[in-house]
């Protein structure tokens, strides 16, 4: 059990899915992004995913690429992500980090886990690191008591689904679509199928990410998943001008969505 599973279970006990909000640290600048993290928590995110921007984000669509590039131009450092984790923890949500592998490797798998733990973080989502590619990361995370959250996709085979769900703690991150991050008109039946596949492989908690943009979609997904992950729509709401009120309105809409489902 962990802070993450406790929070997901508490949401479930309320008869709803958790709302998981993603923002890259440093967009549009570090100070505004920290304020934005606080807004996510105040407006109803149960879990906040902090993204340290990376120079080569192969799993991200144009909006998050833009935000990452802008943040890097502004001089954001990986250290800033740990500061953001502390902000989220203080504000009362459960912080996790979503990081590309090289940023973790350069800090050192163990140090990355230890720094996250010290900042009050609960786990790490790894978009380009699968459990079989990273036994050293899994060992380091277990040592520190940090959750390892891996992704599954519609293309994931039954064998890999088992491997990935076995190695995931906290929750399993299901991507309902083949493609990069970004809003979609519909996440379709595939989402339900991926969630079912993960549950069949023994996953107790499954959250859905990639493609969710509206409160209505959040409500739909909350009908069968333990959490709804929203990133691009929040980044767009925040925007280059750092509009915290527009962000607050978007999070409020999504928070109502996850509560409207059951």
């Amino acid at each position, binding site marked *: 059990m962990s802070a993450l599973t406790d929070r997901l279970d508490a949401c479930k006990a309320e008869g709803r899915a958790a709302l998981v909000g993603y923002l890259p640290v440093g967009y549009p600048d570090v100070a505004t992004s920290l304020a934005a993290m606080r807004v996510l928590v105040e407006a109803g995110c149960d879990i906040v995913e902090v993204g340290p921007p990376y120079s080569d984000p192969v799993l991200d669509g144009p909006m998050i690429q833009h935000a990452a590039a802008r943040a890097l131009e502004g001089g954001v450092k990986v250290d800033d992500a740990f500061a953001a984790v502390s902000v989220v923890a203080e504000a009362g949500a459960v912080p996790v980090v979503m990081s590309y592998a090289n940023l973790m490797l350069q800090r050192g798998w163990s140090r990355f886990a230890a720094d996250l733990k010290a900042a009050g973080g609960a786990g790490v989502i790894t978009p380009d690191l*699968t459990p079989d590619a990273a036994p050293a990361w899994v060992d380091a995370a277990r040592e520190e008591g940090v959750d390892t959250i891996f992704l599954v996709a519609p293309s994931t085979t039954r064998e890999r689904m088992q491997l990935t769900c076995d190695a995931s703690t906290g929750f399993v991150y299901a991507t309902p679509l083949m493609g990069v991050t970004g809003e979609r008109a519909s996440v379709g039946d595939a989402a339900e199928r991926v969630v079912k596949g993960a549950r069949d492989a023994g996953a107790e908690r499954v959250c859905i990410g990639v493609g969710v943009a509206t409160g209505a979609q959040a409500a739909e997904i909350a009908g069968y998943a333990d959490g709804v992950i929203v990133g691009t729509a929040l980044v767009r709401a925040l925007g280059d001008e750092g509009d915290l009120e527009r962000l607050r309105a978007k999070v409020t809409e999504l928070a109502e969505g996850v509560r409207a489902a059951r």
Partner: protein
Amino acid sequence: MTGSLQEAPGPYFGEFGGRFVPEALMAALDELTDAYDKARIDPEFTGELERLAREYTGRPSIVTEVPRFAAHCGGARVLLKREDLNHTGSHKINNVLGQALLTKRLGKSRVIAETGAGQHGVATATAAALMGLDCVIYMGEEDTERQSLNVARMRLLGAEVIPVATGTRTLRDAINEAFRDWVANVETTNYVFGTAAGPHPFPAMVRDFQRVISVEARAQMLALGGLPDAVLACVGGGSNAIGSFDAFLDDADVRLIGCEAAGDGVETGRHAATLTGGRPGILHGSMSYILQDEDGQTQPSHSISAGLDYPGVGPEHTWLSSIGRAEYWPVTDAEAMEAFRLLTRTEGILPAIESAHALAGVIRLGRELGPGATLLVTLSGRGDKDVEQAARWFEMLPEDEETA
């Protein structure tokens, strides 16, 4: 034979290589690995690839001795392995025909590829035309500007060329964009990767398809009197170099030298000499050396040569460097262009600017070893695509005269 370094299977070369990609691509990479493992021992596949090499590419490529150029190389004997004479003008076709045939075996109808200088894009567009596949090429916007002729060639061949305007607008961003396309379209699409880098199986598979260079060259050298003292090739991602080295890996007396692009000089920070100026990291799906800052953000590379302008390098090269089997030398823009000029003026052979980096290495090594040394260098491509850029470098364009 135990202890052979040849044809290392991956996924790891020492501690380098592996597969660091989104889960969404894992099934496709497994499928590709499986198809390749079957194809490489299937006489129908290998026979068809050999036929295409012979009848389409024009293999075996010849070896040319270049005495007038060698006169500037300390009197060493210099021989060129002429990959520039291949159909489409570079070594890239060797790999592309193999991967395009595999695409057909996978039952997929669309290929995507990244390209830097445009050579791999042209080769992929060519193979797609030959085999009736839809083809999309990603190319950094900066590269589409400095290699506009190759953009036109690809479009003439029926490929869609998508300029990539993100990041540094070069090869690295083209690879990012190709990966994004692949994640979204993996059911219909095969990614024809152009260099011996990326996630497994690409480094080993691309090396196998390029290995023909050294297999032929080794036999040609033996027929000419003996193995060379050194084999040299340019290294960006490193596909022509690994193909030039592989059959010589177990010949302990043959030095293997990869020439990296040092741009304005490694000490200036404006370079693409990854093994000289980088350190271990993960980029584009594998563990290797990369140019990066303290946090692990990839740093922009710089080279006059679009094909070498890449902040990573194939993992097998990193391994060969780490065990001391191969050496990697930095070669600046200025050194490469001097070698370009020299080969053109002394032998009437216009090399690709990429290949000119290896020629600069030959000049340096020849002067070090002197008469009696025999040096084999892979001329990975021809310089037709570089005429405008070279003319500008040497101030030979009409506007240079007007302003002079």
